């Protein structure tokens, strides 16, 4: 089902391409040895190179290159053994060199692809145009002084990967799913923490609209959108704006726009006439980056199992539905958690518990897998207690709630609270007898043909046993006793 926006002149299709800036996970900056930790005091992580003092020269950090190559391989992309760093020249207060060292004509990584899983269960492929490596700029702070702006150069020179998609995205949902998938892949690879709140992942969104079957029309670029939700919103808002422009007889100008989530609108930042002429040229301070094939091969050998492969394996080996598998593999921690829980156990039961009660508990407590009060080992143990009949499903839920509260092992909790399921037929018979005696009228009704009352008896017995009676045993015994 194509996503179409209905205009006055009929349906419009939207065309979106994303440029994602992903901060490389590395201890040092792209061209200097300065540290990269988030949240440090302003200008505490700045080398003379990052501050662009006279005579300073960039020297490439091999770790950053390795991370970019790893990402390229994770995106099933072509790694270019020779790439070139270029200068992108423009003046801005927080760009100390007066240029950004980036890659232009010869990027490190060429074409690749990302498989995107959509909410409706479909999958689609978004092409990757390129991935190039560049340095980040510093940060201007306008709120520190009544009349002056301050510059924090901590980010200056931090390595970024710009991951440029092809204009293959056709709906806000696809854009959101693409971003989430990309983030998932980057996190699996350990090359970017994908934290949009801290700015380690940001997106520029290119939007155009067209009538079905048409060639691409003029696109507008929405700069620096910093959450998945805002990316999706901005696409919708911008597409509608463009449709309005076309339908009122206007033309869309190629320009850079900003998204204002508060007002729900995009507005012009600079038009084509005011567009920067970046005067790209190869950076003469850096030789072309040449990689040896075995350097790439070595990185390839250390790639982890990525979400797509993991998902296929979960479907194949654990018999999970593609949807369940997809949910579990979104991040490595939950996939690992699930695998620990499922090992040697009923995998569907394991998946249900992980995706149901466990994820629910994380959500409601605001915890992550890393800080979860319930360990994979303990959740596995709980499933074992269900499987061996120690706990009924109902009791298991009570035990789980206590696990969340106390972080204790289920066996300990069962012992402490005496929650063990009762399977002793003698004890259950006694309860049944009690219940039947107390409800003689209902017994008579049942025996005269009112079968529906069976559920009532089960409920009464379970209640009387405080939920500990084994429901299977209760069923069997009730049936024969009621039969008289």
């Amino acid at each position, binding site marked *: 089902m194509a996503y179409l926006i209905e205009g006055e002149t009929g349906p419009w299709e939207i065309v979106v391409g994303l440029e994602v800036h992903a901060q490389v996970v590395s201890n040092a900056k792209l061209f200097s040895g300065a540290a990269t930790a988030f949240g440090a005091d302003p200008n505490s992580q700045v080398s*003379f190179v990052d*501050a*662009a*003092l*006279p*005579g*300073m*020269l*960039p*020297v*490439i950090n091999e770790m950053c290159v390795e991370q970019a190559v790893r990402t390229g391989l994770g995106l099933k992309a072509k790694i270019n053994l020779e790439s070139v760093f270029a*200068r992108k*020249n423009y*003046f801005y*207060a927080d760009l*100390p*060199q*007066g*240029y950004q060292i980036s890659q232009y004509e010869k990027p490190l990584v060429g074409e690749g692809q990302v498989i995107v899983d959509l909410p409706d269960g479909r999958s689609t492929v978004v092409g990757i145009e390129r991935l190039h490596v560049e340095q980040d700029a510093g940060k201007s702070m306008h709120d520190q002084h009544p009349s002056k*702006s301050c*510059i924090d150069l901590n980010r200056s020179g931090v390595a970024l990967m710009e991951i440029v998609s092809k204009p293959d995205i056709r709906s806000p949902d696809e854009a959101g799913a693409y971003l989430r998938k990309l983030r998932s892949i980057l996190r699996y690879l350990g090359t970017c923490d994908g934290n949009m709140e801290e700015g380690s992942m940001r997106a520029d969104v290119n939007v155009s609209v067209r009538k079905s079957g048409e060639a691409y029309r003029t696109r507008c670029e929405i700069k620096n959108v910093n959450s998945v939700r805002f990316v999706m919103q901005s696409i919708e808002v911008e597409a509608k704006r463009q449709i309005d422009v076309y339908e009122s007889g206007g033309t869309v100008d190629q320009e850079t726009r900003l998204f204002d989530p508060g007002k729900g609108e995009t507005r012009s930042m600079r038009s084509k006439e005011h567009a920067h*002429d970046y*005067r*790209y*040229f190869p950076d*003469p*301070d*850096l*030789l072309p980056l040449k990689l040896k094939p075995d350097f790439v091969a070595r990185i390839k050998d250390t790639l982890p199992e990525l979400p797509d492969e993991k998902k296929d394996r979960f479907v194949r080996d654990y018999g999970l539905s593609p949807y369940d598998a997809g949910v579990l593999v979104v991040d490595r921690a939950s996939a690992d958690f699930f695998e620990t829980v499922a090992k040697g156990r009923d995998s569907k039961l394991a998946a249900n518990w992980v995706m149901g009660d466990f994820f629910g508990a994380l959500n409601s407590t605001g915890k992550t897998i890393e800080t979860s009060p319930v360990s994979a080992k303990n959740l596995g143990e709980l499933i074992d207690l269900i499987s061996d009949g120690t706990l009924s499903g109902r009791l298991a839920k009570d035990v789980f709630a206590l696990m969340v509260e106390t972080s204790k092992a289920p066996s300990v909790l069962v012992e402490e609270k005496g929650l063990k399921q009762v399977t002793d037929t003698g004890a259950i018979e006694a309860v049944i007898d009690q219940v039947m005696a107390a409800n003689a009228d209902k017994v008579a009704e049942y025996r005269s043909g009112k079968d529906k009352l069976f559920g009532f008896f089960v409920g009464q017995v379970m209640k009387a046993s405080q939920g500990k009676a084994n429901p299977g045993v209760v069923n069997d015994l009730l049936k024969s006793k009621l039969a008289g």
Partner: protein
Amino acid sequence: MSDLTHLTIAEAEAGLDKGNFTSVELTKAHLDAMSKRKDLNAYITETPDQALRMAADSDKRRASKQAGLLEGIPLAIKDLFCTEGVQTTAGSHILEGFKPPYESTVTTNLWKQGAVMLGKANLDEFAMGSSNMTSHYGAVKNPWKRSGDAKDLVPGGSSGGSAAAVAACIAMGATGTDTGGSIRQPAAFCGIVGIKPTYGRCSRFGIVAFASSLDQAGPMTRTVKDAAIMLKAMAGHDPKDSTSTPGPTPDFTKAVGQSIKGLRVGVPVEYKPDGLSSEIMAAWDKGLAWLKEAGAEVVEVSLPHTKYALATYYIVAPAEASSNLARYDGVRFGLRVPGNSLDEMYMKTRAEGFGREVRRRILIGTYVLSAGYYDAYYAKAQKLRTLIANDFKQAFQKADVLLTPTAPTPAFAIGENLDDPITMYLNDVFTIPTSLAGLPGLSLPVGLSADGLPLGLQLIGRPFDEETVFKTAAVMEQAASFKRWEAC
């Protein structure tokens, strides 16, 4: 003890070793001489206290037998090299008062070898110029004068302060940098030896950048041997400069004094344009005759793309400069002229901070890199650069070293040529192709013009073959017996 300033570096090392004098004495002699030659304006910043301190430390090291290659030798440092805690201006107003908190690799290497810093030598602003007239700190005077003429002459540029200091014996040697001829042309104008080594031989770390793909540091001295000693001390791989060449630095001094029997000396036919001064032609012929006498063979070579070299250079160098100089924005260091907005502050700072020549080159560079012009200028210039380098590769199949003039004329008077940038740019016509190809080029004085001014010839070598250049230069130096003390 004024003759202490009339020693070569090699002689001074011998004297210091024998205990004939100390580095403090040697340094004092130079500081005295400097105070007498203030008229030359060779230094922007003099550092007498630091010099005496360094000299005293050097004397201690020598006493404990820890002498380096340049132990105790007083040098002038071109003010393009960042020196820790000492004002570094690049000859520009925009950097006035800037004291780098770091030291360039080349000067670090020199201090490690025991050298003493007398001060920071004057230069064309951001090393852009061939006459030393573009310095914000005033023109440098050439210590030489035409016979019977009191008119002040230019020392050449951009390393004009360095050249004048060495020629006038107010430094035993000096660092220079050469982008299109900025060591060789002033060396020729001032009657001294200057070598631009192979690109990558010396680290560019801490040298204020002009055109990164061309800039290269080198020594300026009064003799070939001194240049070999000093280059050995300056050069070496530097992990802080990605374009610095890995591998050991040869002992260039060993080449000095070696025979050149059987050496093939190439003469590029394209370097004899119509109108080349007959004096320069005569000096060139004389140089070739000396080499033949010493057993070398002279061969004609062709560098067919020479005619494009100047145009290529004046696209590539300003392009890189326009980008390299973008960091002088008034935000972090140096001059800031306030404005009502960020853009206004930039514009005012840069308009006031940069001189005319620098602004001209920034404009040229910005233009040739602009969208729509890139392919017509910059991309084409890069292709020509490759062709020019290939010319030299071909030539070096036939020849081991090339001999050419260094500059088309001897030193000219201050004020001449100033109104005509193109004529000024032509001064580098013989040195620029070598720079574009990244090859080593050495200028040495071979004689005097009819009106008594030094004439220089240039030797060009294969990449990383400075040894052949030094070997050949030493032979010529001996034959020329140039009056090197005339300007002291």
